[in-house]
């Protein structure tokens, strides 16, 4: 959707940034989520800066951030003696969520929802056509940076439940499904939110009763919804063309 998102490994850059923070937190013995927010916000601004500098080779900028973060992470993980808890950040675990997290998530979610509302049509124009938005006097640079920061923060928090490796797919799958059914920008956002709430809850519910990893189950329920939507649309189109052929056959 966003031009900055048209490179599919964008969220991966954030995620590796996050994992660096987690590893760093483990080495320093600091609460990793705060560090994750700081590091991924820095990574986000770095990616955005490089993206503008490299304009026509934007993928390059991501590769630069991605590889440097990966290198850093590997070194940091090997430095910290116990690498068992990195697993829970990679694959997510609901038991990791502390009351402290909830108190941070609450104001931050208000910040993010508020941010989207305050700049709603700015974001719309930006995702439709960045160049035109710039010409129409929309603060493109500010909005791009703000958006990157919001994504970075969202990823840092979702990582606790869904896991670092899967959080990017969650962000993308929801929108991919919503894009198939929505006819407007507003509907795309609303459908993604509804689908998100539904899949996270059903995923958690199933993972608890069947004793599966929470992150994986959430993503799988996302995928099931996506497949159902694709299947439904495929069958609907088939039936439509059949009916069309049936109706037109009378004319001959």
């Amino acid at each position, binding site marked *: 959707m966003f031009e900055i998102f048209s490179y599919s490994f964008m969220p991966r850059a954030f995620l590796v940034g996050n994992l660096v923070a987690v590893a760093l937190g483990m080495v320093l013995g600091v609460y990793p989520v705060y560090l994750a927010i700081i590091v991924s916000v820095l990574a986000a601004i770095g990616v955005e800066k490089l993206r503008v500098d490299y304009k026509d080779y934007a993928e390059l900028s991501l590769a630069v951030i991605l590889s440097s973060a990966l290198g850093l992470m590997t070194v940091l993980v090997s430095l910290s003696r116990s690498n068992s808890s990195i697993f829970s950040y990679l694959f997510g675990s609901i038991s990791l969520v502390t009351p402290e997290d909830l108190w941070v998530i609450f104001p931050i979610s208000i910040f993010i929802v508020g941010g989207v509302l305050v700049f709603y049509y700015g974001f719309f124009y930006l995702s439709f056509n960045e160049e035109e938005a710039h010409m129409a006097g929309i603060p493109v640079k500010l909005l791009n940076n703000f958006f990157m920061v919001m994504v970075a923060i969202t990823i840092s928090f979702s990582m606790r439940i869904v896991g670092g490796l899967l959080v990017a797919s969650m962000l993308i799958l929801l929108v991919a499904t919503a894009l198939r059914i929505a*006819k407007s920008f507003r509907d*795309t956002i609303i459908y993604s939110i509804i689908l998100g709430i539904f899949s996270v809850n059903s995923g958690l519910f199933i993972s608890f009763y069947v004793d599966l990893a929470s992150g994986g189950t959430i993503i799988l329920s996302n995928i099931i919804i996506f497949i159902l939507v694709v299947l439904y649309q495929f069958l609907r189109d088939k039936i439509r063309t059949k009916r069309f052929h049936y109706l037109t056959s009378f004319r001959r």
Partner: protein
Amino acid sequence: MNPAIEICNLSFGYQKNLLLQEVNLTINKGDFVAFIGPNGSGKSTLLKLILNTLKPKKGEIKLLGVPNFRFTDWTKVRYISQKVREFNDSFPATVKELIASNMYHQMGFLKLVTPKLSKRIDQSLEMVGLSKCRNEQIGNLSGGQQQRVFIARTLVKEPEIILLDEPLVGIDQKTQHEIQQILIKLNQKLGTTIVMISHNLESIKGQSNKIFLFKDMDVFNYTAKEFTVHLSKKGEWVVNNSYV
């Protein structure tokens, strides 16, 4: 007569060679102007110079009496580019959302559509005859309808001057005529100054009151009355007895 655009002794070239040399022209408020001429004769370049996205080598351009590099009220001067219809067709945007996004600066603290702005969207859609398509997805409309939506998007800003770069390319004859009628209506009813680059030489005479022919680094000015055009035996356009 109030001049909308004045150009004095303007010279410009992308590299060493000049593309426009010592060009002088005046467009008055309420004019409907057509820019014609072969490809590469500097028509689009002149629009970009007017919009101050390119800097002239020599000379001056005034917009509504103000030198264009000091001009700030860009809502009054709007530009519809040649590339406007190059967008992602599957982008989930309705006509209403697309037009609303152009009123970003008129929105309040929350950048959302208020009833007042919604009314303006309706008015501008009515102007281009697309009231019914308000909630259609932009990618599902035909090329001509899309072009009309982009005109409506410009209209919500209530501009005094609209510059259009070949708005009729890739659109069938009937729709071309409809869009021309819309532009004429804007020009006559709202008094909007319109500057349009066109290759449709036959229809120009009926709509514009001034015609500027770009040729040999210069711009020649004709009024609609003295403008004649016909096809030569070789199939080239002949304007007032000289080849284009």
